[in-house]
């Protein structure tokens, strides 16, 4: 196993992802395309290789996902607007310093229109609610400078209802804690400056217990490790609660070599 991150290989891989138009699998994931672009771009940024994908092409692609009828972004050209790709679009434009391409008022109106009387957010006009969408809304509004238009109390009240006995958060009131939902709820609360809603000790304990003997992280008790686990677990621990020391990072990166 290598001791360093093989940056060039990762960059080539990311660059190659848009070159599989001959594969059915590529097309079967069109509903995730814009989100995929965001993850690819972010990975490049982390590796300091943002220029590896052409900026103008990317911005053009993002704008081609704009659903003018709804006032939001779809996951792919001609796909319906949904809050998930809307956040991805805004994130990409922000990273690429191209927020001026956005009709901020319209997209703000779209996002705010997705909030329900209960304080939850729907993903689109068909109404599915999930705390993931709350995070998308809060993050997107914050990125375009319109967080002030959000009813913070109402939004926080809903997240509070999604908090569980183990300190974690679920997708909706009553739903089981899951690291992915913990991330979105903590992130949303953090953006709204309401981390006081989190039971830090309890949640940090629950998150610390996501690490498995092999070093990987799971998303829920007694589940196998996966790649969402680390993101959902470590982000709240470190960025938000400053308890990253509760995880054995060495073991996560190099399975088999635990913290000494």
């Amino acid at each position, binding site marked *: 196993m290598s001791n360093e991150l093989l940056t060039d290989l990762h960059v080539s891989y990311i660059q190659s992802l848009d070159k*599989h138009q*001959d*594969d*059915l*699998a*590529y*097309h*079967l994931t*069109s*509903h995730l395309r814009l989100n995929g672009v965001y993850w690819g771009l972010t990975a490049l940024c982390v590796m300091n290789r943002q220029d590896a994908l052409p900026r103008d092409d990317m911005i053009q692609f993002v704008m081609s996902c704009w659903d003018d009828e709804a006032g939001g972004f*779809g*996951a792919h050209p*001609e*796909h*319906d607007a*949904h809050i998930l790709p809307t956040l991805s679009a805004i994130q990409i434009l922000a990273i690429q310093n191209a927020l001026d391409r956005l009709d901020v008022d319209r997209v703000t109106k779209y996002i705010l229109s997705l909030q329900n009387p209960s304080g939850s957010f729907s993903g*689109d006009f*068909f109404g*599915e609610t*999930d705390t993931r969408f709350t995070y998308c809304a809060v993050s997107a509004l914050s990125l375009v400078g319109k967080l002030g238009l959000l009813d913070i109390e109402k939004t926080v009240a809903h997240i509070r209802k999604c908090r*569980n*006995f*183990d300190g974690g958060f*679920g*997708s*909706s009131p*009553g*739903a*089981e*804690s*899951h690291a992915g939902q913990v991330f979105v709820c903590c992130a949303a609360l953090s953006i709204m400056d309401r981390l006081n809603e989190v039971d830090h000790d309890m949640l*940090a*304990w*629950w998150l*610390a*217990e996501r*690490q498995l*003997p092999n*070093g990987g992280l799971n998303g*829920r*008790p*007694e*589940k196998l490790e996966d790649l969402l686990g680390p993101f959902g677990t470590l982000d709240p621990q470190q960025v938000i609660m400053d308890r990253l*020391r*509760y*995880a*054995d990072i060495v*073991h996560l990166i190099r399975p088999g070599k*635990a*913290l*000494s």
Partner: protein
Amino acid sequence: MASMLAQHGVKRARQSPEALKAQKDKETAKLQEYLVLTDDIFTKKKSSDWSRPAFDLTTRLLNMNAELYTVWNYRRNILTNGIFPASTPEEINGMLSEDLDMTMVFLRKRPKVYWIWNHRRWCLEHVPDGPVDDTNGWRQAYWLKELSVIGKMLDADSRNFLAWDYRRYVLASMPNPPPEANELAYTTQKIESNFSNFSAWHQRSKIYTRLWADQLDHQTTKDEEFELVKQAMYVDPNDQSAWIYHRWLIGPGDEKVVLDREISVIQELLTVEPDSKWCLESLVHYKLLLVNKHGEKLTSDRQQLLDDCRRMLRKLKGIDPQRARRYDELESKCTASS
């Protein structure tokens, strides 16, 4: 790449060049079919085609890719804008019934796709009044069936949280829901068949939170819960589900009698399982609660308790090194608490 996905985990037998070419041609043909169909549907969608042929095309495409949320949207719009307005309530009910059947077929293959669950909810929410002599008749029948459907999904995968979420949705939406006691019994059944079912323990915590908010005296049922969770701890001390639930039952530790009792229960388990991380971790937490909440009433020496905790934390660092730094932090609190 598509063929590699289709054969994930299966060793690919050596194929002749002719066989490989035939496979590649087949994949190319499938891709072509997919692209032509997608193009056709999106063109119709743009022109607001709400016809039956368009509807049937969405069926074909969703069978190839049930994650195309835009096509699910279009399908629903065809129903509400085109087909339903021209149909009788019986016909609408029939179509919804067929769509519910379709989602079941999809869910058996892809039980964790949100879009499929969403369509199922939409169908249930659009059942028309009927039959003629019983306005809620069709609806009632569907809701009753849903609980049994979701029971089967949870039998197949008792940790599928989309299924649990859907179960909670059904219970909340039914016009005449069964009493909470029924759901409690369901979680008992799930837990007794597998103590490691954290999803079931979680559901239980929600039911009891509601029940205990209404009952002034819930000591008996709470004690029964402690008994149940004790069984789980003894059967598999390594499974965290029971320990997390136990911590919730203890809560802030206001009741000294309960704390003392549970500490000795766990202490007893520790004698049989001296290296049990969860016994040690829980004892540390509960003994610290004892010190912090009931300092003035302590029969054991306060210092003794803190020494116990420090000793256990040192042991924990050895048997659970990944969380060593958390145990360090707790150890420093043992000295500071005075």
